[in-house]
Structures are given as C-alpha cells and as structure tokens.
C-alpha cells in the first residue's frame, strides 16, 4: 500500500514527473533562447511561474460550464501521469507492464488534446472555441502518422508491449536503424501533439490570444501548464522507448541516466524544430500531415513488413 502510494505520488509518479516536466520546460526554453541569441530564463523560472500562477485567483467565465471547465486540467494531468507509469525507465521493464500497454499509452496521450478541446469549448469565449476547434482538427491530422510510425517498430518486434519491445530491440540492435524515418515522423507528429511551432496553430498567440486556454487563469492554468510540461516528458519518453531502445543492459543506475539523456535528446530536437520554422496555417498543416507525413509513415510500415518477412 505505502509502496503503491509512493509510486503514484513520488516516484515515478506525480513529484518526479512534475520536477522532470519543469526541468524539461526549462531546458526547452533555454535551448530555444540560446539558439535565438538570447540569454533565456534562469533554472527556476518554470517553477516560479507555477507558484505565481497557483497563488492567483481562478476566474471562471460567467457563460462557462463550471464543472467541465474545472475538471479538464485535472483530467489532462491524470491521464498523462497514468501514461507515464508504463514507460520503461531504468531498464527494459517499466513499473507497470502488460501485453498491449503501448495502445493504452497512445490512448492516454490522446486524452489531453480532448481536454483542451472540451475546456476551450465550454469556456464559451470565441477565441477559446476557435482554438478548441483547431485542436481537434489538428488531432485528426497528426494522430494517424504518429500511430503508424509507432506501430511499425511494434510490428517489427511482434508485440504490443513497450517493455517487450525494448527486450526485442536490445537483442536485435540493427533493427533500431530500420526505424529512423519513423523517428523523424514521430518527432513531427509529437510537435503537433504538444502544440509547438510549426503546429502551435490551436494557441496561435497573434491570432486567437491563447486558443483554448484563453479563459483559464490561476491554479487551473497552472495545472494545465504543468500537464503540458508533463506531456512533453511523456511524449519524449515514448519516443525514446520506441525509437531509441539501446543500452539497457548496464544496470538500473546507468539505464536511468541513459533514459534521461535520451529524453533530453528528443526535447532538444523539439526545441531545434521550433526554432527554425514559422507557424503553418491549419489547412497547410493538414495537407502536410496527410499528403507527406502519413504516406511516409505508411512507407515506414511497409518497409518494416518487408524486413520482418526477409529476416524470418
């Protein structure tokens, strides 16, 4: 019982993910700033932002649906935290693992986007509603490529479990190289999921203020922002587990250090991507995802099918 509580609230649960999430936000912002020739924030800035927001008043708009409005940040955070429990961190085995946890993780990572939509939609503000509609439109564009690119290595490893996938790739290290295209596709799709440039269309500041989050303030906004930081960590962990599953046999400490390095590498790639491009328009984004990214994801899938047939 105490161990379960420790797992949920301290490690690898809430406290660890929150700390890691805030660190990830700091690293993302610092890298972004350095690449833009700026100084960037001090290390405690994300935490300071969180504390400041938490101390502020929660304003619920008069027309908003109070229950939905208040529930959504918490649902977003819990679903992300739950997804994190299935991430292998110090070896090939996660804290919880069962056959098919990959599907559950992907499903749980879709929930936050739905909460952005519902939270924005029930704010009943025009900016929030446009932002919410854009979140959902964007979801349909990046989810398929993301699923397909993660499905390809899973199919190669012949399992639906993240832990078993790591075991497979550890015994067949060459197979990691087969999925490089899938890795690039997954990074691009993850940018869409995390709503970062070039896919920050749902919260495009210069058009619709803050999109779905326009009406959020105080603690609720703090929770939402923390949830987004955690989503960054969980998304990066998922990509690290699926596409970079090497070096897992050196014991828990080395494995854990390597896991952190891998996640930070993925976050670094995300920062780089958002530094060098401009925001796309929603129609351009959907065209790009369906006409370029999705066919490439199919290509990766077919390539893995052929490789699997050839090696059997």
């Amino acid at each position, binding site marked *: 019982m105490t161990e379960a509580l420790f797992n949920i609230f301290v490690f690898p649960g809430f406290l660890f993910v929150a700390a890691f999430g805030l660190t990830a936000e700091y690293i993302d912002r610092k890298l972004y700033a350095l690449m*833009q020739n700026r100084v960037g924030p001090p290390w405690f800035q994300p935490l300071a932002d969180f504390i400041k927001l938490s101390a502020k008043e929660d304003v619920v708009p008069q027309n908003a649906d109070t229950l939905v409005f208040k529930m959504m940040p918490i649902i977003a955070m819990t679903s992300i935290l739950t997804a994190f429990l299935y991430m292998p961190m110090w070896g090939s085995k996660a804290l919880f693992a069962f056959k098919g946890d990959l599907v559950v993780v992907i499903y749980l990572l879709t929930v936050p986007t739905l909460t952005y939509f519902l939270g924005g939609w029930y704010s009943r503000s025009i900016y929030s509603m446009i932002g919410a509609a854009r979140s959902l439109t964007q979801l349909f564009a990046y989810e398929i490529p993301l699923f397909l690119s993660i499905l390809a290595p899973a199919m190669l490893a012949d399992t639906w479990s993240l832990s078993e996938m790591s075991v497979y790739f550890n015994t067949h290290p060459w197979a990691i190289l087969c999925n490089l295209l899938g890795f690039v596709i997954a990074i691009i799709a993850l940018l869409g999921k995390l709503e970062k440039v070039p896919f920050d269309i749902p919260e495009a500041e*210069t058009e619709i203020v803050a999109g779905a989050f326009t009406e959020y303030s105080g603690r609720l906004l703090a929770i939402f922002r923390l949830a987004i930081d955690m989503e960054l960590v969980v998304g990066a962990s998922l990509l690290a587990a699926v596409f970079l599953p090497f070096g897992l046999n050196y014991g828990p400490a080395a494995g854990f250090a390597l896991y952190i390095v891998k996640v930070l590498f993925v976050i670094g790639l995300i920062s780089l991507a958002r530094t*060098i491009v*401009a925001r796309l328009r929603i129609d*351009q984004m959907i065209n790009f995802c369906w006409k370029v990214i999705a066919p490439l994801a199919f290509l990766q899938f077919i390539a893995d099918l052929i490789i699997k047939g050839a090696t059997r």
Partner: protein
Amino acid sequence: MPEREVKLTIGPQHPMLKEPESFLLTLRGEKITDMTVRLGYNHRGIEKACEGRTYIQDMYLVERVCGICSHSHSTCFIQAVEEIAGLQVPKRGLYIRTLISELERIHSHLLWLGVAGHEIGFDTLLMYTWRDRELVMDILALLTGNRVNYGMNTIGGVRRDITAEQIPQILSTIDTLEERTKYYVQVGTQEITLRERLSGVGKLSKEDAIHLGAVGPTARASGVNRDVRHDDPYAVYGELSFNVITDDHSDVYGRTLVRLGELMEAYKLVRQILKQMPEGPIVVKAPRKIPAGQAISRYEAPRGEDVHYVKANGSDKPERVKVRAPTLANVQVVAHMLKDGYLADTPIVIAAIDPCFSCTDRAIATTNIDNGRTDRMDWPTLRTYGIDWYSKQGIDFAELNRKLRTMRESN
C-alpha cells in the same frame, strides 16, 4: 468549426496589435467573409496642439507623431515651414538630414521584418533582426544623442554636425548590417515555412493598389513604381543615385522582398551620402515669426508617402497643421486584402502594411449604432434627427422654444 458565421473582434486590446485599433471580422469557419476597421482609439489631438505652440515647439511635438518614423514627420513638417519662410538650407544640413532619414529607414525595416516574423510565429527571425537593429540604433544615438525621437532637425537645418571620427564607425556598422541583411534575404527566399505563409497572402493587384491609393512598400510590392524620393526629390535625393525597388508578387511575400531590397538600397545610399557630403555650415538662422502662406510637403517615410500641410499667418504659431500619415492611405487596403482570406493570415496581412495607428488617428469617423451607417449627415438632417430623437425621449423643443420666446419677450 461550425459553418455558421461568427463575429470575431480583434482589438482594441489583442496580442496581435501593438497599438489599440479594432478589427471586426466575420468568419465562416476559418475563412473571412467580411471585415470592418475602426480607427480612432489613439486620437491625441496633435494637430490642434500644434496651433497653440510656436514653430520650434511644434517641431518636437510633430516628431512624436510616430515613435518609429519620428525623423520623417519632423522633416516633413520643417520642409513645409522652410518653404513658407523661403529659407535656403545649407547643403551639409540637407545631407545630414538625408543620412538620418536613411538610417531611420534601416531601423524601421529591420523592425518590420521582426514583427512580420513574430506575427507568423517565427520568433527566431524577430530575435535576430531586433538584435541587428540595435546596431543602427547605436549609430543613431551616436549621431543625434537619442535612439528614437532624434531631435536632429531645426528650422533652417540640423542641430548637430557629423565629425570625421564618426564616419568610419557608421561605415563599419553598415557593412555588418549589409552582411546580415543578405542572410535575411537568403532566409526569406529559401525557408519553406516562411514562404508558404507569405506567398499568395493578402493579394493586392496593381489596379487595386492605384485605385485604393496604397503608398510605400505596399504599393511598390504590387508593381506600382511610386516613390517620392524619386518622383519629387526633396533634401538631396536628386543628387543621389538609387533604384526604386518594385516587385510583382503583389502579396505579403512581395512586400517582404521590397523591404529587404530597400534595406540594401539604404546601405548604398548611406555610403553615397557620407562620400558626397560637402563641407560648410549646417544651419541658417531662421526668423521666429514665419510670414503668412501655406505649403504642402511630401516625404517618403519607411511606411510610405507622408504629407504635411502647414498654413502660416505671420505670427510665431501656425494657423493650421495637417498630417497625413502613410498608414491612413494603406489602412483601407487592408480590408480589401483580407477579404476571403484565412483568419490565420489576418495578423501578417495587417502587419504587412507596417501599420502605425497612433500616427494615423487624426480624423474621427462616426458610425450610427442603430443601423451601422457611417455616412455623414448634413446640418439640416442632423437637426431634424436630433429633434426627433429628443421628442421620442419626451422632450419637445417646440414647447421649449415657445417658453424661451415668451421669457425673452417678457424681459
């Protein structure tokens, strides 16, 4: 998005806008079907204030019409005053004025490039261009003592001379900036997302540009070869050789290319000015009282043609000052450019005219809140309208008039 029409108000307070202004968009999905612009949130009464101050005081007031093209406005105003007073400004003074105006163009265009980047979510471009803009700001501070609102002009010339030690500093900064601008041209023409976002957005055909009276880079990007510096040379532009940059893209991408091209021309101009600058006095003594008369002055500000009208009555204060800032000429074009565009393109299309709303807000437009009509009423119609409106409120002027008349007669 539901396919019904939604009204979205952008402004007066919105992250897109740096100054208060209101745009009412009618949206169908992400498409804009209609748009109305409402000016007038920044009316400061500068023209009226000018009438109560002396010419020297007005010069500093007019300089504050705009925070970016301050030198443009003060030069434009002073040219009109000097024309009325019949002053011959010494050549060196005119060269220094032109130098400052070209440096100002560089700083304004670099600023625009950054703003454009920010509006399409490309903050890296913003950070880079604004970093480089500091270099030209430093040069302006070196020459004039101020980063903005230079206070360089005075009636009859300029207030500060340029020393021989300053020239190498200006030239080396210009060399650095030219290198950086070449890089931005590369970024602008090769970065895929940037081109995707700018091409085909905010279309304005050549005919429409002429018909709607667009000025400056907005018009030149639609292929209209119109530049006051070239068509009606003021200061020393007649003695300098430069190209008027035009472009046939007729969209925001074209406007970006025009501004980048003008930056390159401005570097050339600065070098020419420093090379050709003659020795001599920089200012002539101007009378405190300007003889009666009137003049219109034209000036190619970074944003387009700036027009000042000054009427003097022989005293030390002007009788009337009228400012037509370039944004006023361009703001009508925005509504035309946005029609049938995307909501996502609104920020960049508005930013592409390089708007400066506080410079523009001078006239007050009235809208009838009952029927949304913006046309004006003549005096008799307004009078009948007023009488009708008050009689609906239960106030009868006929009765009041009768009472007033009896009161007067009894007195």
